[in-house]
């Protein structure tokens, strides 16, 4: 440290813990308690970044989340690096590495700085007016625009850190641990309320905790001392949960709020291992108190953006809290009394204050009088017209304001400085209030927007509601909190507060200069480089709404989301258009309040926890037997079981041959299962399925097709009549949850008169389906006493049988066209029964087959798969399943829609079979079918829905939907692919065993 910038013995800095960090490759030191910004400043570093557009040198400007300039890339590890971190918010830790962004080759010498000289060509919205010629060049222009845009760099490797979520409930949520929030917390706690108090900094106390002047007194004590006692009291209060380093991110309707707690970002990297990095609190609060304070405004004048120009309140905080002087030659520029506190802090710390420039004519408050008494030069009714110093401010030029305040008069005075502290007044942080849907009103006295109306149970207090002086803050916070909580008395009722009172106020949104506006650069949005000129240009060009101005000039759209810029932008628009600011309104404040890490929003739901895996009870067996799996909804289904390096094709051919020639076994546990009971169960089925159910006998099964109310096929499956008023419905695997919901909906809302109860039992049963010519022999080996004769146990029937103590429901139903038995057992016996089947089937080469073989086997028989052969636009008639539509039933779900004028057309797309001329050619599922591919536009008749090579038939087969397909049987059509055209013939949908002989073995 060449200069003496560090003031020792500050209570918030631990000087026994020296920390090293690296900024732009240079090793520097700071102390525990520093932020990165205060540590940089203590090393006399102001220049930390370059602006977005003009690449102007920019320095640390604030001490909080409103910082527009000091945003750095933290870390240099590909996985852990983080872009756009505010130096003012990150606590210094040992080994911190950071780099300036948006500059090349370095922040001190940045080639992009040339943009500053091109700035006359780069006014607001210039890109809308150019880069249009030649048309084909936009992508080339854009390449360079994109390259130069962006700030930091994204990580390029996976984040190793963990993030967490927690739900919180409280009576009173208090956002902001400054003096007003603390008082409110105490009042609420004394009333026995459960309080959750959030503070985004490490310590409670807000700005009053480091207040060091002798004017403000609470109960005759120095205000900061009084506050410390209150904090100790609150820390020991069992009704109050305090979360520090916790920033409120979003305030949603119904008092639902999100807050982010930083848990490790302040620790050195080695100390972070296995700790949760950030936690997201999802808070439901009965009442919310917003005590988020206010942000100081800058002033808008020519060249107001140089490194070394800072908010006056920040200069004060760096001295009083961090013990860091921001400069050795200071000038203050203000329009209000609060900057005089900075003057006192500078004086008290022995830091040179060359002058105060105040646009007001005078001020006679206690604090100003005190500053006057110190002999500090004050230039009343003066403004800054220019500043000098490229990478660090070294001079300001001031002139006198005229009476109207719209021009300058007299002689220029130059003042030396290496730090200019500016204050343009204060803006209440109403962001959360408006996020929650609250409406603002404009206060002409202080030129601020303050909370007005809200629908929610909430209250704003302190400077967040527009109280800036200590006595107002305390007394109104006490009064308002009591009223809000409906409390008569509090322990603060007799509080005695002394403070300086501001009497003179003056505000000029855009300060005049001796030069015309066009020759100046008065910045509003530092990060996005928008100036007062840009605002005026936008207004000239007809962008009238404040939202238009914002979007056209990009004011307020940087990573600080306009926390510093917005009020001045509004003020200049109001002045230029002669509008009342209250009538103008504000732009929308959108969540989050400060940027929120994606990882924090997602929490633990990453990687293997992204979504649940649903596994059948036989899953482990499939894994042990080398199954490949297919995702069907959330289920993992065995897809095929390759042996000895088989391809999928070979495995499927082998599996399907085995099923047709001897026996196969399928895990059908994933099919949806709904237990239906009640005296009206039969009537219910009649209403939800297209076919008739009245005559189904106990012990018999029936296939059903379910439509949507729009007449389109929705689901299908077999339902078994277990008892007089008891059925078991099966649904498709993917449709199970939706079918259940739909049936419940009809039952509860349309047909409450029906005595029917539905229970989802999908997970309660496991199903092993054994098929093939030897299936009967295998089942017979397992259930020796079960009569499997066709007379006793015909196709589409069901038997209940015991295997030891295990209750088994055996259904003789078939989706493959083979003789087939489905054994349903309680899920916990699933693997047992499966292995039992495998063991019994060994001598018959029982072959486990997966979904792919199942699809092939059913396609040979022309059985549809809902969702594959249908797409929400197919009716049963389109599927050539007219037989399943009961003509006798008066109504069922979807029936009326089948008779709409378009739905009854004969020339709709219909399900057909397709055979390729070359039997070895397998069509691609999804391929389109045409009659003539040369006539443009090509008239597409339909598409291939299912396609396989059938080892039994020794040829390729396919199902397709085809316009007027019913009429086209035997016709030759074409399937055009990218590289060839495949000739096909339309066929019947049933390719194998049209007589259904196999079903009986």
């Amino acid at each position: 440290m060449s200069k003496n910038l560090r003031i020792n013995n500050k209570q918030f800095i631990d000087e026994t813990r020296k920390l090293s960090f690296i900024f732009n490759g240079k090793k520097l030191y700071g102390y525990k308690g520093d932020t990165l910004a205060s540590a940089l400043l203590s090393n006399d570093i102001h220049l930390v970044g370059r602006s977005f557009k003009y690449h102007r040198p920019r320095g640390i400007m604030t001490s909080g989340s409103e910082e527009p300039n000091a945003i750095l890339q933290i870390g240099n590890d590909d996985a852990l690096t983080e872009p756009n971190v505010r130096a003012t918010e990150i606590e210094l830790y040992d080994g911190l590495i950071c780099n300036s962004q948006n500059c090349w080759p370095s922040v001190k010498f940045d080639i992009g700085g040339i943009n500053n000289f091109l700035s006359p060509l780069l006014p607001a919205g210039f890109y809308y007016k150019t880069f249009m010629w030649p048309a084909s060049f936009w992508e080339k222009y854009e390449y360079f625009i994109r390259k130069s845009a962006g700030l930091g760099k994204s990580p390029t490797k996976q984040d190793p850190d963990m993030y967490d979520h927690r739900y919180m409930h409280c009576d009173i949520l208090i956002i902001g641990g400054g003096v007003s929030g603390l008082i409110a917390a105490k009042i609420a706690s004394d009333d026995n309320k459960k309080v959750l108090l959030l503070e985004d900094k490490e310590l409670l106390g807000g700005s009053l905790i480091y207040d060091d002047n002798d004017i403000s007194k609470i109960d005759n004590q120095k205000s900061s001392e009084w506050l410390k006692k209150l904090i100790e009291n609150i820390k020991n209060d069992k009704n109050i949960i305090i979360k520090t380093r916790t920033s409120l991110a979003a305030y949603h309707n119904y008092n639902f709020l999100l807050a982010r707690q930083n848990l490790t970002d302040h620790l050195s990297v080695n100390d972070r291992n296995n700790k949760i990095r950030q936690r997201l609190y999802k808070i439901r609060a009965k009442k919310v108190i917003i005590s988020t304070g206010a942000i100081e405004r800058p002033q808008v004048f020519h060249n107001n953006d140089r490194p070394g120009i800072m908010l006056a309140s920040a200069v004060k905080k760096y001295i009083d809290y961090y013990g860091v002087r921001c400069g050795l030659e200071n000038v203050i520029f203000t329009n209000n009394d609060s900057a005089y506190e900075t003057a006192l802090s500078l004086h008290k710390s022995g830091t040179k204050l060359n002058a105060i420039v105040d646009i007001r004519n005078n001020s006679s408050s206690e604090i100003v009088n005190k500053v006057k008494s110190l002999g500090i030069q004050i230039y009343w009714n003066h403004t800054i017209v220019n500043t000098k110093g490229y990478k660090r401010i070294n001079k300001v030029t001031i002139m006198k304001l005229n009476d109207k305040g719209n021009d300058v008069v007299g002689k220029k005075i130059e003042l030396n400085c290496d730090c200019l502290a500016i204050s343009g007044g204060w803006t209440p942080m109403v962001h959360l209030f408006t996020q929650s849907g609250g409406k603002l009103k404009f206060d002409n006295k202080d030129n601020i927007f303050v909370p007005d109306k809200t629908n929610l149970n909430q209250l704003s207090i302190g400077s967040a509601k527009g109280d800036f002086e200590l006595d107002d803050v305390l007394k109104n916070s006490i009064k308002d909190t009591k009223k809000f909580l409906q409390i008569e008395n509090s322990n603060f009722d007799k509080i005695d507060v002394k403070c300086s009172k501001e009497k003179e106020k003056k505000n000029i949104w855009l300060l005049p200069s001796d030069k015309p506006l066009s020759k100046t650069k008065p910045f509003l949005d530092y990060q996005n480089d928008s100036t007062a000129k840009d605002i005026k240009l936008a207004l000239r060009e007809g962008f009238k709404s404040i939202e238009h101005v914002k979007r056209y000039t990009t004011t307020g759209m940087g990573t600080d989301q306009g926390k510093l810029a917005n009020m001045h932008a509004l003020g200049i628009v109001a002045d230029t258009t002669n509008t009342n600011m209250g009538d103008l309104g504000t732009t929308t404040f959108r969540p989050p309040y400060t940027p929120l890490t994606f990882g924090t929003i997602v929490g633990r739901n990453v990687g293997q926890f992204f979504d649940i895996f649903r596994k059948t009870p036989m899953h482990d067996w499939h894994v042990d037997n080398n199954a490949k799996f297919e995702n069907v909804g959330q289920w993992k289904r065995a897809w095929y079981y390759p042996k000895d390096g088989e391809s999928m094709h070979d495995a499927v051919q082998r599996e399907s041959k085995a099923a047709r020639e001897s026996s196969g076994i399928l895990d059908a546990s994933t099919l949806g299962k709904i237990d239906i009971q009640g005296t009206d169960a039969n009537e219910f089925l009649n209403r939800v399925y297209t076919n008739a159910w009245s005559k189904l006998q106990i012990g018999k099964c029936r296939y059903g097709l379910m439509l949507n109310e729009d007449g389109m096929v929705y689901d299908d499956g077999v339902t078994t009549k277990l008892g007089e008023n008891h059925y078991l419905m099966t649904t498709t695997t993917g449709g199970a949850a939706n079918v259940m919901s739909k049936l419940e909906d009809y039952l509860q809302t349309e047909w409450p008169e029906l005595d029917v109860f539905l229970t989802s039992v999908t997970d309660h049963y496991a199903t092993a389906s054994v098929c093939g010519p030897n299936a009967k022999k295998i089942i017979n080996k397992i259930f020796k006493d079960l009569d499997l004769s066709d007379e006793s146990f015909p196709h589409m029937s069901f038997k209940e049988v015991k295997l030891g103590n295990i209750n088994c429901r055996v259904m003789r139903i078939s989706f493959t066209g083979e003789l087939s038995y489905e054994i349903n057992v309680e899920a916990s016996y699933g693997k047992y029964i499966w292995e039992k089947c495998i063991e019994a089937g060994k001598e018959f080469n029982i072959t486990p087959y997966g979904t792919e073989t199942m699809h092939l086997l059913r396609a040979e028989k022309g059985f549809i798969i809902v969702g594959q052969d249908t797409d929400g636009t197919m009716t049963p008639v389109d599927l050539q399943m007219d037989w399943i539509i009961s003509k006798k039933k008066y109504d069922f779900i979807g029936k009326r829609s089948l008779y709409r004028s378009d739905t009854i057309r004969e020339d709709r797309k219909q399900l057909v079979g397709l055979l390729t001329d070359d039997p070895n050619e397998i069509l691609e599922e999804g391929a389109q079918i045409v009659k003539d591919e040369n006539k443009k536009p090509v008239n597409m008749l339909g598409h291939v829905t299912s396609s396989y090579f059938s080892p039994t038939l020794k040829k390729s087969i396919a199902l397709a939907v085809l316009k007027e397909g019913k009429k086209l049987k035997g016709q030759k059509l074409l399937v055009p692919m990218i590289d060839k055209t495949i000739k096909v013939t339309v066929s019947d949908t049933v390719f194998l065993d049209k007589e259904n002989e196999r079903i009986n073995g």
Partner: protein
Amino acid sequence: MFLINCPYCGERDQSEFVSGGEAHIARPKQPTELNDDQWAEYLFMRKNIKGIQFERWNHAHGCRKWFNVARDTSNDKIEKIYKMGEQPPKL
């Protein structure tokens, strides 16, 4: 994120519920008597009101019961919750 006071379970987070759209559109008792226009009116046409809408909600991740909600769609304020089969309140 609303809080919905399920008539069977009490106040719960909105994420436990699924909306079923406009309420009191009864399925016609005799669909076959309707012409295509009338059927389309039932099937597809919705008031889609900005203001107080009577709508159906299902406590899908709870008791799975359907019930009715009167909610102001302009500010998402829930005015009244009432059971299936009950008449909409006068608001």
